[in-house]
């Protein structure tokens, strides 16, 4: 009897132990139908641009769900879902599997590139350029500074940037070439832009989703650029853009166009005004999507790109001669622009 009185609570505790140790997984349907519906639901609850792009996501579900068959192989399913995602017309939406990553090349694929890496490397940077913090930079022969920054994924150190600007201290102005820069870190965009302003500048807003509904957004948070406390550039700047300027580059252009001595030159940017998040599907495929929309200072979305101040394009004949007409236009503009603040 005494032993029973001891054993009974132990057995009850054991039941508590083993009955409470299993976490229910509600996301286990790995059939093509299950994966498709998980993808649709993830986008339905998290994607932030349905209203901006006038998309009827429910109708899209009806169209594509009827095409999904549980007998289809994974590659067929992948490309069917990629086709569905392309309806969003968003370069920040990617479905990743072991064999491929879906992507939307936006309208830029049918537009002039307005950039030739080979021409820039051979005829402008040459072999005597300097390199720091992901930037290739050089003083051109007309005393104009040229910076080629190809990715905002490259971290920018304060010391590096100060050295670059110091190197250009006697220059008429600076060209910052961010053409075909696909983006990276917003923090790097802020770091670079902060060298070109003398006072705080309000340049836009950012929101986040507060719920699963298509219209559930937070109050916009004001985005402000603060001047760097150390060395800053006070002379004219030209930022070169094309359709390949996306995501953080698009945000950088949005910041820079607010600054008084900065001119945006080239082609319209590619857009990408939604900070992307990631999630996962039951079969292990990864999905990336725009989650936090950003706007300019007038609450206009920057998702679909920004027009330049001066539209200039390259032409194939000039490129064959080693002449980048956008860079040349920027150089002329800097020589004609009044000096520093």
């Amino acid at each position, binding site marked *: 009897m005494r032993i029973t009185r*001891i054993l009974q609570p132990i057995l009850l505790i054991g039941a508590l*132990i083993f009955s409470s140790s299993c*976490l229910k*997984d509600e996301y286990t349907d790995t059939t093509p139908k299950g994966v498709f519906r998980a993808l649709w639901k993830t986008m339905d609850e998290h994607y932030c641009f349905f209203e901006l792009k006038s998309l009827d996501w429910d109708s899209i579900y009806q169209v594509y769900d009827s095409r999904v068959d549980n007998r289809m192989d994974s590659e067929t399913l992948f490309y069917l879902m990629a086709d569905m995602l392309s309806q969003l017309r968003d370069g920040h939406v990617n479905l990743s599997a072991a064999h491929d990553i879906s992507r939307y090349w936006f309208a830029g694929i049918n537009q002039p590139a307005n950039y030739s890496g080979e021409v820039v490397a051979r005829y402008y940077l040459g072999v005597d350029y300097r390199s720091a913090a992901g930037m290739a930079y050089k003083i051109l022969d007309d005393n104009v500074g040229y910076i080629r920054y190809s990715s905002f994924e490259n971290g920018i150190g304060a010391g590096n940037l100060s050295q670059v600007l110091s190197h250009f201290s006697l220059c008429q102005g600076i060209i910052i070439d961010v053409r075909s820069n696909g983006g990276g870190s917003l923090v790097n965009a802020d770091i670079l832009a902060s060298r070109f302003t003398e006072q705080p500048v309000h340049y836009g807003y950012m929101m986040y989703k507060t719920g699963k509904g298509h219209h559930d957004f937070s109050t916009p948070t004001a985005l402000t650029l603060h001047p760097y406390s150390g060395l800053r550039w006070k002379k004219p700047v030209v930022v070169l853009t094309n359709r390949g300027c996306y995501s953080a580059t698009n945000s950088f252009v949005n910041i820079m166009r607010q600054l008084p001595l900065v001119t945006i030159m080239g082609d319209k940017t590619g857009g990408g005004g939604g*900070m992307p*998040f*990631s999630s*996962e599907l039951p079969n292990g495929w*990864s999905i990336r999507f725009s989650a936090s929309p950003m706007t300019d200072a007038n609450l206009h979305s920057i998702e679909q790109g920004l027009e330049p101040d001066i539209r200039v394009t390259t032409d194939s004949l000039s490129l064959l001669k080693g002449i980048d007409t956008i860079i040349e236009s920027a150089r002329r503009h800097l020589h004609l622009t009044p000096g520093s603040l």
Partner: protein
Amino acid sequence: MNHILCFLLLLCCISPTYSQDRNPDSSQLQINGATHIFTLGMGDYQQKDDYLSPLVYQGYQLHLQYEGWALSHNRSNRLAHQWRATIMAGNSISTSGYSQEPHLYIDGLYGLYTTLHPIRHLTILVGGQAYLWGGALYNSRNTNNPASASGSLELRAAAAAIYKISTKRLPVTLSYQIATPIAGATFALPYGASYYEAFMLESHIPYVAFTSFHNSWMVDHQLSVDLSFQRCTLRLGYIGRYRESDINQIQTAQYYSGFHIGFVVHLAQLTRKNRLNTHANLLY
């Protein structure tokens, strides 16, 4: 062995100590002795965090725990004091097998209990705990939401039962503890907010939420067997910690079931009369 003993004594020095009794007959609190318990364990770990992924991740967790107990009494009652710190780290893999989520958590608590003795050799403790917990989870595949931080301060209802089986050869102590939060505050980002917006911008995103049974529950329990050998007391036990929350439409869950092994150290304090307390007077 001497090095190990010195290390343990150094660790014991960081535990709370109380003033010596100046007058054994006064109403001031007296400490009969402190028990320090060091355990190392591992076990099965399951987790889910909708901020990173809707899938359940399964894996393992290791934990290192220090726990201390002491009794104090005045004329009216006997109180048991508990303090505990745990470091937990592990890794888990998604049900699809394609991604991993390592994690690291630490917690600490202070508990105060009233003691009851319904039958001989059985001590029942009933009381509460102040509990602090924090850490982070990381998913290497994600982009702007690669990590999910956790942190909470809770008031918990707690109870314990300690049963001593005294034999000539091998005294055994069975104990069971259980605690559950009643109310607290936790770090909780809104549904779709990013850490960039919350902490890098001049935003006013609310990231503290009140927790109670309506949006969060947790059970923290341990079952232990202490075997008192001639020179040391060995502890074997099971530890279970289960937590779920649904805050700001983000569901999280952590389920840990593990076993641990360690040892129990009794550090009896000398009273003014230079009398050592016997093992029977200690809680463990």
